[in-house]
């Protein structure tokens, strides 16, 4: 069930567009922010609010890599592995995440603290390697920095 606030926020977003379906992506973001992921029930509810058929909502939401369709951990690490980050060491960072946290791409730590998603270019090539943790940007990552940074997410 979507919270009253979420429903209200979706209503507000709706008013910015001349057509209800245009507010679908922003609405899904609001829901994902609340729940961490987009459950089938949530997709259905968003569809009902915006008068967009639920199958259509699902088709749309699954097209986009940043929408999650499975529950995730408390914090989402989105680590870039595209060319610039790759040559600047992102593969090594992946190993570290695996060794230290047992984190595999698309996996979640046993304690539910972190989930990891491997990203295509996140626009930080000049300060590669880089990652997003939730909505925070971290770049110029090194072995040391990444663990320090992650330790600040509980």
């Amino acid at each position: 069930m979507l919270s009253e606030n979420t429903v209200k926020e979706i209503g507000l977003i709706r008013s910015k567009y001349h057509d209800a379906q245009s507010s679908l992506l922003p609405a899904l973001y609001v829901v994902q922010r609340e729940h961490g992921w987009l459950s089938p029930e949530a997709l259905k509810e968003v569809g009902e609010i915006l008068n967009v058929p639920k199958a259509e909502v699902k088709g749309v939401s699954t097209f986009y890599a940043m929408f999650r369709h499975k529950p995730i951990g408390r914090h989402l690490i989105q680590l870039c592995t595209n060319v610039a980050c790759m040559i600047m060491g992102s593969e090594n960072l992946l190993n570290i995440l695996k060794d230290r946290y047992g984190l595999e791409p698309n996996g979640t730590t046993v304690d539910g603290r972190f989930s990891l998603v491997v990203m295509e270019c996140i626009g930080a090539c000049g300060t590669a390697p880089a990652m997003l943790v939730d909505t925070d940007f971290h770049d110029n990552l090194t072995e040391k920095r990444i663990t320090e940074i992650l330790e600040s997410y509980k």
Partner: protein
Amino acid sequence: MITVTINRKKINLEKPVTILKAARMAGIEIPTLCNHEMLEPFGGCRLCLVEIEKMPRLQTSCTQYVTDGMVVWTETEKVVEARKAMLEFLLINHALDCPYCDKAGECDLQDVTAKYGPATGRFAEGKRRHPESFDDPIIVRNMERCISCTRCVRMCSKVQGAYAISMVNRSSKTFVEPFSGGRYDCEYCGNCLTVCPVGAIMSRMHRHTYRPWQIEKEADTVCSFCGVGCSMVLQVRGNSIVRAVPRETGGSNKGLLCNRGRFGYDYVVSSGRLDSPMIKRDGKFRRASWSEAFTYIAGRLKKIKEDSGGNSIAGIVSGRCTNEDGYVFQKFMRAVLGSNNIDSVASFGYAQAQRFFEGIFGQGVTANSMRGIPNSDGVFVVGGDPTAVNPVLGLQIRAAAGKGVPVTAVGYMPGLKIFAANRPMPKPFTETALLSAMVTELRNIKGISGKGLFDKLIKDIPPVSLGEAEEVCGVPSKDIRSAVDALSRMTNPSIVIGMDIIRRTEGQANLLLLAALVSLLNSRIYLLSELPNEQGLTDMGCLPDMLPGGRHLTVESFRRRYEEFFGVDIPSSPGMGIMEMIEAAHDKKIKALYVMGEDLVYSMPDSAYVKAALSKLDFLVMHDIFMTETAGLADVVIPSLSWSEKEGSYTNLERRMQIVRKAVEGKGMEEWRAVSEISRLLGFNMDYKSSGDVIAEIAKVSPLHKDITYEDMTGECMWPYKGEPLRHGISLEDIEMPDKGSLLKRPEKDRIYIGVDKPLFHFETLSRNSEALSSIAPEPYMNVGKALAGRLFLAEGDSANVSTAAGSLKLSVRVDPDIPDNSVMVPDNFGDKGVYAIMQWKVNSALKAPVTDAEGVTIKKMKHAAEEVAV
């Protein structure tokens, strides 16, 4: 004028079309996979690439429009190489299981690969794995065969408007899925099956039962479920129908079908089919020979006619009977038995509406081509959900909406929910107030001269203000206002009328108001027709006061014409309508009732009352394909043929005359044939050898059907095909002006009303005997609004007992926020009993139609199926 050269062939065109179309017009085949004539171009499969001079890249012929002077090559080496490459790509992930796949033999991919494809693919890695999904009772999905052409999804969303499936994920991980990922939550139109070029989406009904090349016979016929009369082809192997598919072109449906038409045919082989005449003696049926049965019927009818007169005999025809059945039967009743007591369920509203509008605007005014709907500039719908009653007509409304035409849908219409720009939701049975306010407003906006005969009447309709209407029907004034504003801007709208609006105490006022709207808006009328031949039966004179060709019995000259033709006199005063017949049976005023295929106990209000009435008859004859509850009460039961086992004609709601053809052999007999046999035994010779003979006679006597032959009925034959021009109406004597009070009748406070829901998946006896349809929708339900559900502590999936003074039904609960408060919607036709069973017996005396708006309902939650909980 555009001239394009394709493979050296010059093609002249009036307007630009795609290269693909131009090529096809010139007989040049270009292979395609994602393109389909019923769908918008997509350009995804890239198989239709062609070379165009002066263009460096190959272009997709399905998306590229021709221009004057363009030179196109469709089979150059470069093109053929590209096609081969595309096929090699497609085969990367497409399962190579043709020997096992049901689509083999009619698979587009198989065909083009045979023609252009590489001998072997060079892709070495494993294919995508995706287990076949059997989660659905009807549709099996095999995504290892999907080629992402999206034809099914485009069909489902853009044409059907069901939006039940979508492409999920992206890149090569894309596939097609219903929302649940398993079972479909859809309209089961199966139109996705029509367009899937490979074996990715298939019907389970004929899984592994035959191969396309094993089809022995195809019967080009029309569907027998509703009044749209979709053209379809029944494919037969042995003596059984293996598949029903739409005919690609022509008819009213142009390649579309609904769930009932596509999957519901399996009632034909239901184990409950009657296979022999039965005569009841001492309360028990026993099998009888045909001649025994006919002799028995003739004898009993003769006796009753002699003892009590022809007027003590009545006949009812089913809306599934053909024109031939209807014609012969009314002749039998009138000429042989001397009774005008003949009617059908068309008189549950359809016939009355038709008569009302024809009286004002002229003959044929209610029967218009469905294709006109998307061409109108606005659609107004009231009285029932067209997408459920007449699904393929409903699609035309959706198509209109898709083109941006504003649709106003009054009342509960789930199938138009996302399509209607305006959805006023009046309180139960208060549409009259809403319509009155609309007429009042439009009258002000449009102005009327008051000179024309009908204009005078419009002028006299008591004015109802928006505020008054709002108070009664609960629709906010501003919503009525915006609906009116939208309508007033239209120049050629369509008004679609469901029968619920007529089966009311205020039925006649509603008709008048609708006629006023039609007149003020200059709109076309569409009447929803629940049965395949309601229109045909009224045309054939299966009405107590009308003769074939829509001619009034009481008009001496018309009657004479038929009397001369029949060679006998027919009674000159109108007979009893279907509602009166039941009452007369109750009062023992009629002694014998001859029913052709109508399960009266099921389809009429108050089943207990109807049963009691039928039990009082001296003699009840029943033709049917099943031993229905009504048949169980009969003295003689004659097995009928299902629509796939006989030949005849239907006239659809557009007045399109089409032929039903025999696909398989059945064990019953056509009604017209049986009736002619009985007629002969009664000394009146009816010498028809075939249904063609009957049509020939109709073509001679009915002015509307003059000179029509079977050959004419190719799908585009609308009466008056060669017949007399249609007559103009303006007979207003019968129209009573309603007083303001009746326009503003409000629902009683705290009373729960029962409304008739039209389920998409069911239609009377037939669908109940269809395994396929029953597997889609196994149990009857009630729809209840959120507020009422809350007050009654009902949740989705609960069982509840819904009762009225006339009886009760146990139903599972569905909660739908769109249902107006204080009402429940109950389907009229599936399960053991439909909603009519518990409607009180009430007749609108002016329309002689049932009234369904008077119910006080109690609803009790049941803890388990059997137990009731007091709430």
